[in-house]
Structures are given as C-alpha cells and as structure tokens.
C-alpha cells in the first residue's frame, strides 16, 4: 500500500528481457517498489492496442500499490515500432497464438517469483484481449495465485470462431483454473456480452471455483480507459480499481 507522507518511497521501472514461451527472449516492462520486500508480483497482459503507454502506466500503478509488476511484450517476436503499428500487423495476422501467450505469462511469473525480494505470490491480470489471456494463463499454466479478468472478450467462443491462433474456447479450461478469479464487466459490453459472462460464471460455479464477478450498469467495454471518452466511466472505474486492489490484497498480500 502507498506509504504515509513522511516515508520515503521509490520505484524502478524499465524495459528488461525475460525468457518467454520456449525460452524465447522477449521484452517486458518491469515496475517494482524499491526496498527489501517481500513483494508480491503481478503479471499484466496488455490489450490489443499493444504494449502501449496505458499498459505501462498501469504496471507502474500496481508498483505504487506495492506489487512487483511486469508487462511482457506479447507482440515482441513479430516486430518493433510504434505500438499501434505493431498492433495493426498483429491484427492482420489474426492475433498471437494462445499457447505462446500462456508461455510468455508463465515466463513473466517465474521471473517475478525468482527475485530475491519476492513474496512468492503472483497474480495475472489484463483488459480486453488481455483479460481473456489472463484467464487462459491462469487455467493452462498452474502456479498463479490470483487472476483478474477485466472484460475479456472471447472467453466464451463460438465453435466457428475457433482457429489456429485460438484453438480452444478458454471457458472450456475452467476445470483447470487453479486460483481465485475476479471478473469485472460492463453490462452494455458486446464482447463479452452479459450472456457470455453468464456462461463463464456458470462454468466456474459448476467446477466449484472461487470467483467474484461484478457487473456494472451504465458501462460497456473498456470503462477504465480514461483516454477513450466514449468508453470511460469514472464512477465504475474508481470502484473497479478498488475491487482489483482489494482482491489482490486478499489473494496476494501487499
């Protein structure tokens, strides 16, 4: 948690290189509080617009709140340039392969856990496609202690939408989810729709998973994004961040 005004606080935030899926070396943005710790960790999986300013900003926000936070560049293998130029290339490719993202998330988690001042607890979180990826990572790679799905679209997929990049609907991995999950959704969202959120919730219930879903009226997709005026909902975003930090506090400590 943030310290009182009389205390020194510090943070280091920088680009580093870590091993991802198959040992591939990928870039990651790593923001962590200074000090002996022990610090819990959080892996932030960026959204479709790429490894962008917002993704790095929220990584620093988590560091401010006492977490060693890391955002791997999930598009690192493909190209480098302005984040949206890279994202356009990724979009043309149909995205990045799900198993590769899971491997990159696991690599980031293992990096955090290996640090001398790590508490050993590591969560995973993401918005939009990153929320979907977070659910996948926490289901397909054992070893996360908490997962937060912020309006991840495509957690519940139609059979006709499955493809080489996304071969399995993430909801079908629910039985393998090995940690508590928090989900925040806007009731006006269409990816995921409230009906898809219902399907996901039913699967979590069926498999006896520890979950908390919160659904906001008057909000659609991306209601944390203050730089997207049509999407941003201040009241819901403020409450949502409180829920995220409270959840990580309970599951990871801080």
């Amino acid at each position, binding site marked *: 948690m943030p310290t009182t005004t009389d205390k020194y606080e510090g943070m280091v935030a920088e680009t580093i290189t870590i091993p991802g899926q198959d040992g591939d070396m990928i870039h990651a943005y790593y923001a962590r509080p200074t000090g002996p710790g022990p610090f819990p960790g959080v892996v932030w999986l960026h959204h*479709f*617009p790429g490894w962008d300013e917002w993704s790095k900003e929220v990584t620093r926000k988590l560091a401010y709140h006492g977490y060693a936070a890391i955002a791997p560049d999930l598009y690192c293998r493909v*190209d*480098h*340039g*302005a984040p*949206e*130029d*890279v*994202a*356009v*290339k*990724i*979009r*043309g490719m*149909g*995205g990045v392969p799900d198993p590769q993202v899971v491997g990159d998330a696991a690599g980031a988690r293992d990096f955090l856990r290996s640090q001398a001042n790590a508490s050993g607890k590591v969560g995973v979180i993401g918005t*939009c*496609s990153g929320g*979907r990826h977070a659910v996948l990572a926490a289901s397909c790679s054992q070893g996360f202690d908490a997962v937060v799905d912020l309006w*991840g*679209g*495509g957690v519940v997929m139609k059979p006709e*939408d499955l493809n080489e990049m*996304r071969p399995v609907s993430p909801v079908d991995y629910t039985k393998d989810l090995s940690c508590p999950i928090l989900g925040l959704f806007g009731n006006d969202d*269409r*990816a*995921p729709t409230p009906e898809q959120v219902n399907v996901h919730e039913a699967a979590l219930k069926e498999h006896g998973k520890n979950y908390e879903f919160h659904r906001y009226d008057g909000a*659609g*997709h*991306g209601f944390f994004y203050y730089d*997207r*005026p*049509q*999407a941003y909902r201040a009241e819901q975003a403020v409450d949502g961040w409180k829920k995220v930090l409270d959840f990580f506090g309970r599951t990871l400590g801080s």
Partner: protein
Amino acid sequence: MCANIVEKAGIAGSGKGLAGWFNLTEASVSYDHPFHVDIEHALNIDFVNPAAGLGERVSVELTLESARALSVALLAALKRAEAYERS
C-alpha cells in the same frame, strides 16, 4: 481483438503514408477496437506493404454507416470503370 473479425485481400496500387508514396500489397479489413475514432468498434481498413516495414501503412477507421456508404460508392465507381474499360 475481441470481435475477432478480420478479412484480408491481396491488392496492387499505391498509398501515401507518413514517408510519402509506397507500393501496396495487402489490405486488411477488420471490425475491431479503433485507435483513434471514439467508438467501441470500427470498420478498419489497413492498406499495407509488409515487406516495406511497419511504417508503410495507410489506415482508416470508419463507422459502420460510413463503411456501407464507402462500399456502395466503391462498387458503383468500379462498375462504371469496368464498363469504361470494356468500351
């Protein structure tokens, strides 16, 4: 990538990007979150030349109504152009 709607077409022509004109080889048409226009999803068209690098890109982000109007205009002009070429 939440809507997961992408169509691609091989094309030939030129586009004018930040660094000037360049050869186009591909168009990617998607319905996805836009970068700039302030709507949740847009009909995006990215004219690119992958071999020329990331910066060689001309992109538009359209509302569905605009995309429909553009497609009607495109097909109408195409029909007249093909008739012209046959004459």
